[in-house]
């Protein structure tokens, strides 16, 4: 079942095309990663999903309803944090949860509020004013507000911003638990690619408002191809040699260093080719990560 369906959505701010003809679909139970550099259109898209920004064209359906005509019904089933965790500095964590509980039609009991505080690790600071909180604590409270009414769809825009490594790990585990144990559909955006790689089952890569790639991570990351970073005794010469031969098809455009997207069985051949041409290979660093895939896509587009 499709939870989110975005059809050819664009958003223009004057002459700037923040989002340009974007279409994608999120199925129930998926953890859907939204990837892109700063300014790629992630937050604009998320704001359109939450009807904070009106699309210039295109349509958005959530739970089978258009967001424009069934806004309240749709938003009742969504919990979201958008970019920074901006909250009321003069209120405590518990007051925030109590106040936001009033805005939901579902009955939220004091016990649920206590459970939420525990879930986000703020039970010991429940009565402290938010102005005394660190960025990470505010982020966790923001997540608490998003989860308070037990929504079916959770939209988290940069949820690990400002968190320490332990906090990041906790949020990652929380997201995975919500998806696996409670069957929630989660759309999570980030520019920290390793985070998305560990959390998401599907990804969408946005670049300059356009979709570059979409699909299950396993499909997108071809296990037969590796991204390698070469360190040689003479990089400029090595680059010339690669460009003149058949390996030039594997060369990735990067500002610095020599990167190739190459089948793993051809790496020894590349080594032999370079040595025969008089260039010594110092190191071959190989990866097959989302980060490299992302950089490969975006650098080719640039």
């Amino acid at each position, binding site marked *: 079942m499709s939870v989110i369906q975005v059809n050819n959505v664009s958003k223009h701010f004057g002459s700037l095309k923040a989002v340009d003809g974007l279409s994608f679909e999120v199925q129930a139970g998926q953890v859907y990663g939204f990837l892109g550099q700063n300014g790629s259109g992630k937050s604009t898209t998320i704001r359109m999903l939450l*009807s904070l920004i009106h699309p210039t064209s295109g349509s958005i359906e959530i739970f089978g309803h258009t967001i424009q005509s069934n806004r*309240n019904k749709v938003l009742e089933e969504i919990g979201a944090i958008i970019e*920074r965790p901006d*909250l009321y500095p*003069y209120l405590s964590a518990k007051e925030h949860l109590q106040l936001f509980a009033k805005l939901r039609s579902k009955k939220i009991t004091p016990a649920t509020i206590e459970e939420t505080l525990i879930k986000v690790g703020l039970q010991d600071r429940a009565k402290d004013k938010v102005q005394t909180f660190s960025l990470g604590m505010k982020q966790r409270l923001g997540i608490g507000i998003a989860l308070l009414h037990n929504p079916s769809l959770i939209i988290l825009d940069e949820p690990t911003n400002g968190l320490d490594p332990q906090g990041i790990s906790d949020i990652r585990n929380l997201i995975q638990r919500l998806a696996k144990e409670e069957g929630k559909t989660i759309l999570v955006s980030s520019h920290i690619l390793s985070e998305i790689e560990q959390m998401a089952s599907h990804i969408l890569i946005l670049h300059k408002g356009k979709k570059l790639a979409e699909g299950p991570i396993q499909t997108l990351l071809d296990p037969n191809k590796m991204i390698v970073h070469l360190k040689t005794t003479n990089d400029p010469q090595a680059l010339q040699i690669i460009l003149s031969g058949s390996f030039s098809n594997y060369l990735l455009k990067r500002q610095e260093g020599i990167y190739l997207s190459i089948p793993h069985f051809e790496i020894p051949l590349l080594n032999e080719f370079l040595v025969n041409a008089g260039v010594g290979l110092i190191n071959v660093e190989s990866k097959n990560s989302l980060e490299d895939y992302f950089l490969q896509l975006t650098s080719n587009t640039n």
Partner: protein
Amino acid sequence: MKSIISFELYKIFRRPRTYIAFGAIAALIIVIQFGLKIDGKSYSDFLMKDINDTLTVDGNVLNGYLICYILLQLLLVHVPLLVALIAADMLSGEANLGTLRLLFSTPFTRTQWVLGKFIAASIYTIVLLIWLAFLALFVSMWVFGTDDLFLMKSNYVVLIEKNDVLWRYVGAFVFASFSLLTVTSLGFLMSSIANNSIGPIVGTMSAIVFFTILSTLNIPLFSIIKPYLFTTHMNNWKEFFDIQVNDNNEAITGSILNVAKIKTSLMVLSAHIVLFVSAAVLITKKKDILS
């Protein structure tokens, strides 16, 4: 809507800024009451100096009713500025803080949010006015006692019997609530345009000062627009204290000299409230929330 109003009221009364207005009003009233208690005789002698030769006034002239009238004359000009502190911050303050996106992604329409916030700001305004009424009227009645209300107008005097005064104050405060709600709605409109707190607060205050000057200027060009300016009508609470007289020039108890003027003012103020709030709703509905 009820949820939004209670949500907003909770926030308003948890903010330290809210109590600035209550503190300012209390401080001003207490200082004036203290001054008049200590040196009220000199003040009343000064007021009566022009008519002392032709009129003998007995009784407690400087009573609680007159003190309240003096206080209202002084304060109802400035209270709008205090109201603007909260009203003009209701939407723009949230945008500035970044919480507007949190609110507008809850299952309520933007119209519901704007109206809910306006009602909450209006409740704050009314509570502030009740506080003003309590201090200016009831505390003055308690400190200075009660007697007939003797008012010096520009070219005549008005004497209202003691038992004919209190209902006029009720009317005056109800009227004043319309004046202040007009300011609240203006602040709200300003608040819907901006994404920071200071601009709308200063904008509202500036608009009040600007239109007040236009309302008081006796230039024929401005006379055409004067009847339509809210500032022309804001101080017409004083009409409750102008009384009709019979053929013997005796005051008619329970009468008001110019009821039509009060009605017209209330209509103009109400029209402004509807206009400002409607504009705020339209602007907010069309707005992209980028903060």
